[in-house]
């Protein structure tokens, strides 16, 4: 895939992207003026209606400004969709994309948001829905060949937002992630969507549920197996997997690496021989597939956890920072109790 000569597709691509970007900017500049002007009287009108607006915040290093709570939201990845559903704002979602799994039963009663795309949607397909905010689970979803660069979207009058718990920049990335960070993210989203009251109630309920949970006292060591077969991709020392394992009373074998997730080595896993293995279940990497990888591997099949089938299962969407983390801790402690 890497031809050893400079004339490769990779060499040509930045030039092509730059050319397209220029086209896009010049082509859209005229069009974006009109809606912005048309909206301005409405925006000033809503200023008086909504306390807390206009709102400006520093989101992962990008300035986000909103004159009124967003009414048309595109969500990318399950964490952002689920946060809105948990705040009772499901009807504001005009399209969801790149879901990590089905919407949990708890929210199936509310109107099911329309699906825009199975994968990361293109900028144009998002703009066609005329959203006032795109809410993504990962910063990387906002790329030129994904949903569009954040600055470009802002120029087109579309705000963008990433949960602060998912920021990757130094100074923004919570390291290590704590439940206070998770709850602060829910509260900030509450302000952003004009639903501060609902967010406060949700956080209060989750705090109470978390405090009522008792972590396993066995001191089990654990591998958080997220994906990969040749090179395992595992939960590391400072992200959501670390927080969830610690809260459930598990000792993470990859805690020494300061990252959310990390490529790891099977040899290091064999050396640690963990007591339990947390299998992350997703549409693209099912639990069955991960068990098959472990059980057919000449060395991994000899791990104690694999021989005794000491597996814990976590849905992928609940393994990233968000409204399902407390539920995940509960599930982990219950599964641990069932092992004994």
């Amino acid at each position, binding site marked *: *895939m890497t031809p050893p000569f400079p004339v490769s597709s990779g060499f040509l691509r930045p030039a092509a992207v730059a050319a397209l970007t220029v086209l896009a900017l010049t082509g859209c500049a005229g069009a974006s003026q009109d809606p912005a002007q048309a909206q301005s009287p409405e925006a000033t009108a809503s200023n008086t209606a909504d306390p807390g607006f206009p709102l400006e915040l520093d989101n992962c290093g990008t300035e986000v400004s909103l004159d009124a709570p967003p009414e048309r939201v595109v969500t990318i990845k399950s964490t952002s969709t689920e946060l809105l559903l948990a705040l009772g704002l499901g009807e504001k979602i005009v399209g969801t994309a790149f879901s990590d799994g089905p919407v949990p039963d708890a929210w199936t009663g509310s109107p099911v948001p329309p699906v825009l795309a199975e994968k990361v949607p293109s900028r144009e397909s998002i703009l066609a829905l005329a959203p006032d905010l795109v809410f993504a689970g990962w910063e990387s979803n906002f790329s030129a060949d994904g949903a569009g660069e954040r600055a470009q979207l802002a120029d087109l009058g579309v705000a963008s937002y990433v949960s602060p718990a998912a920021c990757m920049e130094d100074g923004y990335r919570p390291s290590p992630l704590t439940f206070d960070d998770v709850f602060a993210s829910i509260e900030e989203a509450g302000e952003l969507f004009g639903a501060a009251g609902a967010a406060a109630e949700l956080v209060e309920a989750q705090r109470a549920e978390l405090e009522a949970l008792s972590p396993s006292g066995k001191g089990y060591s654990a591998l958080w197996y997220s994906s990969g077969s*040749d090179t395992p991709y595992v939960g590391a020392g400072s992200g959501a997997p670390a927080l969830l394992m610690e809260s459930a009373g598990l000792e993470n074998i990859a805690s020494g690496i300061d990252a959310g*997730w990390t490529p*790891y080595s099977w*040899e290091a896993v064999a050396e640690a021989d963990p007591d339990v293995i947390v299998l992350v279940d997703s549409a693209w990497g099912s639990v069955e597939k991960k068990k098959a990888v472990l059980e057919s591997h000449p060395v991994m099949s000899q791990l104690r956890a694999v021989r005794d089938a000491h597996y814990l299962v976590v849905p992928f969407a609940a393994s990233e920072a968000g409204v399902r983390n407390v539920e995940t801790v509960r599930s982990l402690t219950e599964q641990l109790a069932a092992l004994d």
Partner: protein
Amino acid sequence: MWKPYAPSPNSWPPLTDTLARPGAPAAERPARPPRSRAWLVGAALAVGLLAAGLWALTVGPAGLGVKEAWLALASPGSGSLTPLQEAIVRDLRLPRVLTAAAVGAGLALSGAVIQALTRNPLADPYLLGLSSGASLGAVTVLLLGAAVVLPVAAFAGAMLAMAATLALAGALGCITPTRTVLAGLAVSSLAAAAASFVVFWTAQGDSYREVLGWLMGSLAGATWSSTAIALPALAAVGIPLMFCGRILDAFSFGDTAASALGVPVPAVRWTLLGATALLTGAMVSVSGSIGFVGLVLPHAVRMLAGASSRSLLPLSALAGALFLVLADTAARTVFDPREIPVGIVTALIGAPFFILLLLRRRSGA
């Protein structure tokens, strides 16, 4: 005595043409160094390979050193190590080192043979599109679930890509190194784009990491079943190829001269190119496309031991094996306990070496 550009559409000009200093063809094919020098280099490489292989068995994230590695292999089940520790050395490190050596040898040998056959110092399995073709075949099987055995698909891809490259170069007129390189580039880009499309279309969530590691070339997944493909492929195809040096030396003076020496030129050329595609396909199917091994190592060996194919082929194989064992050990230990694809390491070392090679030739002009 030989014509640089024979009129036959199926003939290549001599190796000296592309990068040789003008007016100094002797620089490309220096007076053959004494045979003893090749033996000396060969002995040094063989000792180096053995030492590197043994050393690689004693390093890794698990911290099992010389003593533990020895115990694991020499007296398994003695109770001084846990079964898991023995398995780390026996089933993770050992097959990985053997696979790295076989793949490195196979790729370097393929590079040396293609360079001699096409009389093109820039040729290697990458440049002629073989690696991309093999990747495409393998990616198609892996992601689309085609019911073909992986090495067979990789071989078919490599073979198709090479045939396309040579047909395209031939369609442009007399097959010159430049035309071969350009045709290879076109085919390679096309196969790479097709493989990327398959990956882009099917990979979901963070599973692209897995595929990326594979496309960059990685030995992280090497087990005894990888060794069982790479070593027999090297033995069955690579070793016979190593003894074709005399024929390739005849080729180096041009097709006409080779015919005059009694070599059935087209038959031999296609047989050897087919064998190279088979070897590359087998290696790519276990390791992904690892770059620069086929391009750079034959040049390094030429600098040390001269350009005679008879010594160049076995020495390139040894050097490739040594290089890839070292590169892969770096890939799995430098960022311990993380791993990086070995293709990154070979490119980081290979690309600067290649640039040096180009500059050296330029400054000599």
